[in-house]
């Protein structure tokens, strides 16, 4: 990873991409809230309060209250870490497995590549939600299992993308030059290919994080992820469903938070790609 840190930049001041700044601020703010949530939350997120059931947003309850009188704002705060953990955890898993597999599949022209790619074909042909269901249905639901399930679902997608990018780069002359020096396969992949593969991988990662959050929420919505009374956002939306007419804020608050988080992550990914690509940097 160190080779993406570009030397030779010192002395050159340049503005960060605005998408990176805004995406970073929002994601950072949500991450911060997820961490300090327990201390700043006005109420206990799981405390029932029958007297204030289904209250609309007010000064006392910013996002209103749910059917048990729990404070929706406090619950949303407490749920942020589920979504963040889900998105980043699952995607990190898919990267850790997908990048090496994809690079090997690109470099090797023999049976190993064939084996990896056919396995990927099989996995990719199963709908992701079904694959997640399969993993979760056979065991007791738990958040970490959801993360692993979602991460595994995205490994074949990551593998394919890395392989496609790697194949293109392996055809470049600078790789031939490395072969002409007798460089090892590992060096070629790590030092010549990977630094050039980051931009598409990062964009894909941002996209995957958002999908992972959505898929995780969907699994929770289906009752296979976080379990009540956890305030996972997908689960909150699921629980709000019967009250959608009377008290839309119960579902709206976690829904909007999801939305803002996803957009911010996408902006962040776009900004990172711009920052890391020296070709985009030299312009202007």
């Amino acid at each position: 990873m160190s080779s993406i840190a570009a030397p030779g930049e010192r002395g050159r001041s340049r503005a960060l991409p605005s998408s990176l700044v805004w995406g970073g601020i929002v994601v950072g703010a949500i991450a911060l809230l997820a961490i300090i949530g327990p201390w700043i939350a006005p109420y206990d997120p799981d405390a029932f309060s029958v007297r204030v059931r289904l209250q609309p947003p007010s000064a006392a309850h910013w996002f209103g209250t749910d059917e048990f009188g729990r404070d929706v704002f406090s619950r949303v705060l407490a749920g942020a870490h589920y979504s963040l953990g889900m998105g980043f955890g699952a995607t990190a898993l898919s990267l850790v497995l997908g990048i090496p597999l994809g690079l090997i599949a690109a470099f090797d022209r023999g049976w190993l590549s064939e084996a990896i790619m056919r396995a990927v074909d099989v996995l990719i042909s199963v709908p992701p939600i079904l694959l997640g269901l399969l993993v979760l249905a056979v065991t007791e639901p738990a958040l970490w299992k959801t993360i692993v399930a979602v991460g595994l679902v995205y490994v074949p997608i990551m593998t394919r993308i890395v392989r496609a990018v790697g194949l293109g780069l392996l055809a470049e002359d600078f790789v031939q030059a490395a072969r002409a020096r007798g460089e090892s396969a590992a060096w070629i992949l790590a030092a010549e290919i990977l630094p050039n593969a980051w931009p598409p991988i990062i964009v894909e990662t941002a996209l995957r994080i958002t999908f992972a959050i959505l898929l995780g929420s969907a699994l929770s919505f289906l009752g296979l992820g976080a379990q009540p009374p956890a305030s996972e956002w997908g689960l909150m939306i699921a629980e709000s469903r019967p009250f959608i007419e009377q008290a839309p804020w119960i579902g709206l608050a976690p829904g909007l938070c999801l939305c803002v988080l996803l957009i911010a992550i996408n902006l962040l990914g776009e900004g990172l790609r711009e920052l890391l690509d020296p070709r985009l940097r030299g312009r202007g």
Partner: protein
Amino acid sequence: MADPGQAGKGPLLDLRGLSVSYATGRGQLAALQAISLAIPRGGAMGLVGESGSGKSSVVLAILGLLGEGATVAADAARFDGEDLFANAASLRGRRIGVVFQDPSAALNPALTIGSQIAEPLVLHKGMSQSEADARTIALLAEVGLPRAETVARAYPHQLSGGMKQRAVIAGALACEPDLLLLDEPTTALDVTVEAQILDLLEGLRARRGLSLLLVSHNLGIVDRLCDDLTVLYAGRVVEQGAATTLLDIPAHPYTRGLMGALPRADKGRIGRLVPIPGGLPDLTKPDPGCNFRTRCAFVEPPCSAPQALVSPPGEEATGRLARCRRAGEELAWPVPPLPERTVRGEGETLLEANALSRSFALGGWLGRVSFAGGRPHLAPQAVVRAVDGVSLVVRKGEVLGLVGESGCGKTTLGRLVLRLIESDGGTLRFAGETVPQRPGAGFRRRAQIVFQNPDSSLNPRKTVAEIIRRPVTLFGIARGAAADEEVDRLLTLVRLSPAYRGRYPHQLSGGEKQRIGIARALASQPDFLVCDEAVSALDVSVQAAVLNLLDDLRDRLGVAYLFISHDIGVIAHVADRIAVMYRGGVVEEGPAAAILSPPYHPYTEALLSAVPLVGARGRAASRIRLAGDVSSPSGAGGCRFAHRCPRRIGPVCDEVAPPVIEPVPGHRIACHLPPETLAAMPPALGAA
């Protein structure tokens, strides 16, 4: 640009004071600055200049196809008396035809050739579909495509590059245009195919009275087709006049520089090429004075004043124009001194390939599953013999030039001798030792490669210093601070300042990137370099500098090169010995002077006579033309060139492998023709 025959009718195309500018992030870029040119009816104008000089902007402006970001202004722009810009949409495609560089991009891959040519006939000419189809076939026949009906039904991918370009020309001719714009029409084609296309264009011009505007970087083809020449430099016309006089005695220092930088097949090794230092000026801030003066060897203080495009003294009557206050003076570019050659390529053998072969399988095993005959089975694997039993020798400090057309296997051979791809037959020896399929660090250090495409040969994520330092440390040549010093030394060796260390490839020009590629290859202090089309992507002025550099390095370091190129001029300039490849095999090999003059292998003869030369207009009579192209089918077992050979004897050529004739020791020709016949061939490069 006198036009005596058509006096009074005025030129067909008349552009006066055409300016084009593009909006960019750094302000307005003045791509064309008040250029004027006129093409008489039936006349042919050549437009030359290096990349970025504005040639293509002229073509796009004439067609009215400049995008939204472009601002076009002109004092007058008339086509046959009409306002060109007001009527651009109705003129283009009807009275003005156009042929671009890449025929593959010009044709829609999803439509048949016939339907693409017939479409404008129906659209613009109001023909019925059957009339248009008949006309299409007539057009395809006119541009020399055999079996025109079959071609009309074919899709672009079924045709070779030369056939596609013929089809594009047929399409451009469909609406009987008066003017044909040709933007680098043969740059993507092989030299023998290029010669066919140039013949075709010459014939069309004579038959149809077409006017041509030929945009090219190649002075040879411009000289062949055009009456008049316009030389563009950084958006300005620097010289204009009749092609013959202009190329004989160029008046402007830039044109003189271009001529001096050009390696010429007919001149062979002319000592030193004259590079033009520097690069194009910044067009966002056009220099009001002479914009070539920063690169010019004859610059004087008054050159910073605006220069007018006027006739040089004593040439007012010829209509010749030059934008230089010193035009007409005897201006000879300083020729860089010839270095002392310490190593002549006559030493001991360094690299010896013996019957090297490599085939490539076509398609995977799934594609071979066949159901013919009722039950599934695996059909035999289709293979291409890219390199077929090639033997060659490179001596210490010697340059072996390898020429041949695209697809002849020269790149594969270059990779085979470096063991970058494994051979499936033959042996390779380097410095007396057999090189295994997976050679060790010793061979890797001593044999290196320089690539064609400067954009893909450098890792865009590494700085110049990182790129050059890697082989230095990898092969243990230097470590730590000593390695940094070595990087600086290598940069100086390829004539770049050590200030380039921190730059990334995208911050370098094409010529600079190529130097970095050379420095990287030299970093391991090799004895042998494969230069795979190492100068083909560069402009002539830059190419001259890189060729001189490679020349110097050979002389100073004693490095031997396998110099692969399709450009015979370049090969003639650099090579001590030349090998000519055709369809995976070497058909002729010998000292450079012996290859470039008779006796020839018939393929060499055709190849050489297809080379467009500057100032060789009388050569047409002796031209040999090859029919078809490399991909035409041929029988196995016989001579690999028999299917296209203009001197084919008979079935013996198809069935029996040709014997190797050695007219003089070291000059080998594989041909069935008797040595006397070969010796009686006329010189294909003209009387040089």
